[in-house]
């Protein structure tokens, strides 16, 4: 069995759990609990441990998707999750600019530990007060589009939209790994 491990991370309430549910074909293991402390005023249920979903698309092939916990501290759980990931998706809710700093911190945290392909998924761009993806890229510190990872708009509630964002990730993975793979022959 060949398995690709994908991590879905992002800011609180960005839609990580929903994203994983939208692609998974099995009942998602979710560990949503009532939120504590500062997260509580953002939403009632937050993911305290992790989400997990799978997508089996051949007898011997499956995509495993892991979500990071919603609350804002990095702990051992993160280390375990990202250690074996092949790629990751960073979800950011466009209508909560106060969270962009945290999104940047997550990205720094990840990139200091693993060098794996990633894409940024902008959710909630249909909501009032949503920032454009260009402005979010600026808030994340991308000063030009060359060094910037692919950024896609995604509605986590919509399976098609999630599938399209995953295609972007797969293609990005193909490009980045093709660039470093030794030429055989």
């Amino acid at each position: 069995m060949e398995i690709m491990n994908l991590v879905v991370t992002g800011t609180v309430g960005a839609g990580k759990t929903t994203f994983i549910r939208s692609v998974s074909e099995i009942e998602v293991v979710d560990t949503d609990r009532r939120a504590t402390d500062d997260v509580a005023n953002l939403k009632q249920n937050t993911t305290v441990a992790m989400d997990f979903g799978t997508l089996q698309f051949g007898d011997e092939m499956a995509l495993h998707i892991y979500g990071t916990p919603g609350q804002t501290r990095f702990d051992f759980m993160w280390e375990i999750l990202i250690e074996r990931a092949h790629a990751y998706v960073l979800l950011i809710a466009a209508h909560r600019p106060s969270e962009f700093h945290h999104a940047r911190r997550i990205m720094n945290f990840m990139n200091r530990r693993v060098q794996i392909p990633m894409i940024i998924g902008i959710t909630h761009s249909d909501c009032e007060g949503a920032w454009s993806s260009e402005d979010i890229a600026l808030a994340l510190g991308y000063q030009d589009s060359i060094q910037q990872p692919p950024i896609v708009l995604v509605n986590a509630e919509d399976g098609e939209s999630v599938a399209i964002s995953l295609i972007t990730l797969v293609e990005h993975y193909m490009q980045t790994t093709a660039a470093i793979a030794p030429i055989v022959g």
Partner: protein
Amino acid sequence: MSLAGYLSEYSLAEIFHFVQEGNKTGVLSLEPERGLMRSLSDTYYVSFQAGRIMSVTARNGAKHQSLLKIMEQRRWLSAAQTMELETQVGLLRQPLGIDLKARNLVNTEQLTLLFNSQVIATTCKLFEIHHGRFNFDPQAPLIYGEMTGLSLTAQEIALLGLRMLKDWGGLSAKLPAPEFALQRLSSKLPNLRLDSQEFKVWNLALGEISIAKIAAQLGLEIEKVQQISFRLSSIGLVQEVSVEPPQPSIDKKSEALTPVYVGGGNANAPVSASFLTNLRGFLKKKG
């Protein structure tokens, strides 16, 4: 799409940085929270053209400060001239200052003085506002009647504003922690005039030396280095990074929640090309 929020979330320097990096044209309005400081106006409007600050105006109730009035107060224009010009400002297609200079009504020195008091002095005051709303409107018409024709990049003004800031109390929560290190975002020498302390800190922003150590090395107070770091990071020259990855601290209670990699999979081995092609094909049917 909006570029709006609260100053408690984004400092003015950061907003300026977005506008400059995005090469934006439009008007940024700032509404300080009421009762904050008595000397503040209701709303400030900062006009940008391709990321450069062209003018800053303030509105207090119905009262709007105007460039023509300032020139009249300084007796550069007579009351009659001012009145006549006021009927024409709406038709301007270039900054007022350029228009008046072409007509020999003002000279470059006078325009520089105007720019210093209208833009530099006012913006420096704006950096003291830490609570209130901001909104950048890319569609707002440019107010040519308030422009001298001179401009500075948002980054240059932010650097000036933060250098002159005396009361850092409102920003204390945003200062980088002493145990964090700084990392340059570009190895190129910034094309900004950094002062000698800023330059020394920038030189040590290599992602390894903590702010506390930088302070010790340069013989500066930690707080001072935090302020310099904040300045350099808000204008996009450096970012704060953690020196050591936090050690995983596994306690008994959380052990029960440890995720299990259900099927294994080894990230050291990249996924095969046929796997990726299959996955893409499968997703295409769904998408």
